[in-house]
């Protein structure tokens, strides 16, 4: 290689090296942004960790058999959360029996059968979206006016569960519609092309394929309802219930019992409240974990 050629080559090499070096300020900006993102994440995680640590520290000593077997009592030594735990389970059962079928039915109708571009259908869809944004206390007022007083159900567990179900409807409807929409149209076309009716295709193919998504949305909606307090205060959930509740009796649920215990002056009740929070958290984490497991287990790539 001649000299001129070598020099030219070295110059070109320098130019390439410089162009590859990049601009320092860009990497600084990227670093700052990355730091901000990390910090944001850490703030959330630390807050959660502190909360959990505090609750566990305060509550764990009180998580014992008595918490599950005894009724609330003025004597913190004997107080338990049995009626509230039973009521929370009953509420979940009522939600499954009432809100779930209505929500899934609504979703199937709107996704699979409703005429597209119909004014009335559009209005219903808009309202469902809006319903999801209504504050929970408003649902409580509705429950009080319509269920407790309107049809004179009284401040019973059924009234509270129904109003929680109403509040849960939009969430589950929207999640179920998403799940149904994720089933490709080719499945419907394939079924129809075999001479199946629309109903047969929906019942035998589309709905089963959408079940995992529907179940996930339903469990998430239910876990929100189980942790809900405000609307139940409006419809008259009692704070002190020492008997096992039924559908048509007075009741208290875990979040309200926690609220009640925290207000009491004795320090032991603070510990009991923390213990009840742990019970509630375990239930909710289990429900959400199950939903996530279902989603991962049955998620389908089309």
């Amino acid at each position, binding site marked *: 290689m001649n000299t001129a050629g070598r020099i030219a080559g070295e110059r070109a090499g320098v130019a390439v090296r410089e162009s590859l070096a990049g601009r320092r300020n860009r990497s600084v900006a990227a670093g700052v942004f990355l730091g901000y993102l990390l910090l944001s994440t850490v703030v959330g995680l630390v807050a959660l960790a502190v909360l959990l640590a505090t609750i566990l520290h305060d509550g764990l000593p009180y998580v014992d058999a008595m918490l599950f077997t005894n009724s609330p009592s003025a004597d913190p030594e004997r107080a338990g959360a049995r009626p509230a735990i039973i009521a929370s389970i009953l509420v979940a059962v009522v939600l499954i029996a009432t809100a779930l079928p209505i929500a899934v039915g609504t979703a199937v109708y709107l996704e699979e059968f409703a005429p597209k571009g119909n004014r009335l259908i559009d209005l219903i869809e808009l309202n469902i979206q809006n319903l999801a944004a209504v504050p929970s206390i408003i649902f409580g007022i509705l429950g009080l006016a319509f269920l407790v007083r309107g049809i004179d159900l009284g401040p019973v567990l059924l009234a509270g569960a129904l109003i929680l179900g109403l509040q849960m409807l939009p969430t589950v409807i929207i999640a179920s519609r998403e799940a149904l929409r994720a089933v490709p149209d080719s499945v419907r076309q394939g079924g129809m092309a075999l001479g*199946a009716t629309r109903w047969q295709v929906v019942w035998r193919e589309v709905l089963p*394929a959408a079940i995992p998504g529907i179940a996930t949305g339903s469990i998430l909606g239910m876990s929100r309802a189980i942790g809900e307090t405000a609307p139940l205060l409006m419809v008259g959930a009692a704070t002190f219930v020492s008997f096992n509740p039924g559908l048509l009796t007075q009741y208290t649920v875990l979040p309200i019992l926690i609220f009640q215990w925290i207000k009491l002056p004795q320090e032991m009740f603070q510990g009991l409240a923390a213990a009840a929070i742990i019970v509630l958290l375990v239930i909710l984490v289990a429900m959400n974990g199950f939903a996530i497991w279902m989603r991962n287990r049955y998620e389908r790539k089309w």
Partner: protein
Amino acid sequence: MTVDPTSETPPAAPSSPVATGGGLATLSVEDRPAADALPLDQREVVFDCEGVGVRYDGKRALRDVDLRIHANAVTALIGPSGCGKSTFIRCLNRMNDLIPGASVDGAVAYHGENLYHPQVDPIEVRKRIGMVFQKPNPFPKSIYDNVAFGPRVLGMKDQLDDRVEQALRRAVLWDEVKDRLKEGALGLSGGQQQRLCIARALAVEPDVILMDEPCSALDPISTSAIEDLMLSLTNEYTVVIVTHNMQQAARVADMTAFFSVDQGETGARCGVLVEVDRTDKIFTNPAHERTEAYVTGRFG
């Protein structure tokens, strides 16, 4: 175990309740002429289309199709994109009914009965005229349940196992899947999935199989398997296939219909049928210049 589907004896004619009712009850398997016994244009006319057109939301996508489709033959519909060949094939089993805003005009006579007569139930039509789609669309369940879906919804539940096996044999899939009928259909290869979809259509014992670009998502080996299958199916069925692939039409079709796009004065594009004839004539000596330009690759 032989897999040659031509050696299978056809199952007994469906005397099940689904074959009755509607204006289409006159059809039965015995009425079909023996395969290849007659020259093509003397065989029974399965579809006689007159002035068929389709509009989507008022916009015309296809007009004035006059076309006869004969029994026990493969009829290929070819043409450039947007020429309305897929739109047309969907008129033959009223699948266009499922598209909001689609309307069909003209008359499609199926064994002499107008498919678009108000008293004709599209569900009954689709029982007799099966369809296979561009992309394999097995249901997300087992291989067995896929094939059994049609018989189950149509109430043909007797000897379901035999029915499923017959359908899978005729679709030349039995030997590949007989040991894993309970496994998910989505685990099959693309070519196997498409043959499963064909088996699924065959299981309800249709008269006609419509195929809308059945090989466009498949590799050459799977394509070849499906093409062999189409040829063997003409022993018992009438096959109509839409294809982008002219070689495919030349290989499998007895009759070929060439569709093209007309541009109106307003600039609106609309599909038309240019020419229909025996496949060898379409590819070697077409009557229309447009057909010749297309099949020789000078256009589209």
